[in-house]
């Protein structure tokens, strides 16, 4: 059912955990849906994502998309990172089963929320 890439990211997730003294935190999902993702980011002076980590409760697709998003976001500017879409995450994983596109592919939303959180803390600082 899952692509090799999904299984790889599920079995060997990249950047799992929490960034210490995070500059932005984004949490999406709902335990009652079976999916919760928490993305933490560290942003450098040039507004690039220096470090990003995830913690995820959810199915194989939820964990794999979280891992993939962190890999895609690392080193990107905030603007570039915000452009990461659900589709681009799924594509990078070699596709997701259709029923997994909806609830289990929230990682890019989590990243956007973390960036929003960073911005709300740092505007007109």
């Amino acid at each position, binding site marked *: 059912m*899952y692509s090799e890439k999904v*299984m790889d990211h*599920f*079995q*060997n*997730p990249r950047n*799992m955990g929490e960034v210490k003294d995070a500059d932005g935190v984004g*949490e999406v*999902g*709902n*335990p*009652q*849906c*079976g*999916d*919760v*993702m*928490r993305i933490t980011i560290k942003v450098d002076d040039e507004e690039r994502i220096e470090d990003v980590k995830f*913690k*995820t*409760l*959810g*199915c*194989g*697709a*939820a*964990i794999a998309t979280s891992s993939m998003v962190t890999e895609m976001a690392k080193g990107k500017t905030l603007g570039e990172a915000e452009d990461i879409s659900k589709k681009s995450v799924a594509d990078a994983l070699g596709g997701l089963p259709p*029923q*997994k596109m*909806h*609830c*289990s592919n*929230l990682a890019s*939303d989590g990243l956007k929320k973390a960036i929003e959180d960073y911005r709300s803390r740092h505007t007109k600082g």
Partner: protein
Amino acid sequence: MKEAIFLDNAATTRTDPEVLKAMEPWFCEKYGSPATLYAPGSEAKQAIEAARQRLADLIGADAKEIYFTSGATESNNWAIKGTADALASTGRHIITNEAEHHSILMPCRFLEKKGWEVTYLPVDGDGLVDPEAVDGAIRDQTVLVTMVHGNHEIGTIQPIDEIGTVTREKKIPFHVNAAQSVGHIPVDVQGMNCDLLSLTAHKFYGPKGVGALYIRRGARITPLLHGGGQERKRRPGTHNVPGIVGLGKAAELARGRLDKEMERLTGLRDYIIDSIGNSMEDIRLNGHRSRRLPNNVNFSIEGIEGESIMLSLSYPTSADTKPIYVSTGSACVSGTLEPSHILLALGIPVELAHGSVRISLSQDNTREDADNAVKALVEVVERLRSMSPVYKRGSKQCASGSKSDGCDCEAAT
């Protein structure tokens, strides 16, 4: 390739090699249809009648009350729709319960759309139906009570004898879905006072695609399929001779092994339940502790989700760990956004239903398999919990048992 440990036997079992051996001649050597009169045909006819007798002996029925079908889904559909049709002029009310298999619930929903009324009785926290509630739900218009014997997901064994006493007293036809129990625990259609009983071969080491419906002599039921005159004109279609022979062999083997195997599996089941209980916190055993199928273990594990448990066990990362196959009641595998309706019927929170894992045993499983499975499960749970943003040790969610609102995924995105 490492040998895998198959612990999803409530889904299906490995065909017993003796069953396969009994089936083999009926493909290429003796392939005549039992409906014909020449020698190979009458040989096939004798073989299916012998199988019918063996199956009848296993469930305390008369051979003439056994009708071969394609499996439990067909038998359940036939029992419900066939009885509803035959008795439509008497009334249009059916009684079942909330924690039934889809092959019971969907035919009921189908009939509801056609104007029948269906009462879905609640189950208690262990999944049990109250026989008095069955009694209370019976109306003048009731034409069928249908109840599962052993629940496929949580293993709870219903008080079928007591329910059968109620239905017999009120003269209401009583159907029992015994797909999970036949061949594993004693099933006796006389003691159950049932009029109809569904079973399927592949749940007790027979082949897939063959089952039976027991129809008590005199029970009124319309055929589901219409065609030739097979099965006393009640179930047309050329007989699945190899399958029926396999079902007969599986029944014969089950009859010989049942007592010993039931005791052995019950011991193994309890060993697994205790081992898991002793090695993990924040978990909940789903289903009744003792009124339970000998091969069923079902736990909810707080803070993680079932599909990821199942996937982690089936694709171990360590080279010396065997793949282990189990199942889950998580929404992620149900094809809907909802987790198992059976777990929800127990009244447990939705998030705990997502985090359920079912281990179901067979005659092939050993103590070593149990030890390997528990060890692997403990490791997987620890790893997934370390990834979980919501798991907090000792949050006692498992103990609360309160219903929560449910997932509103559509609105969330």
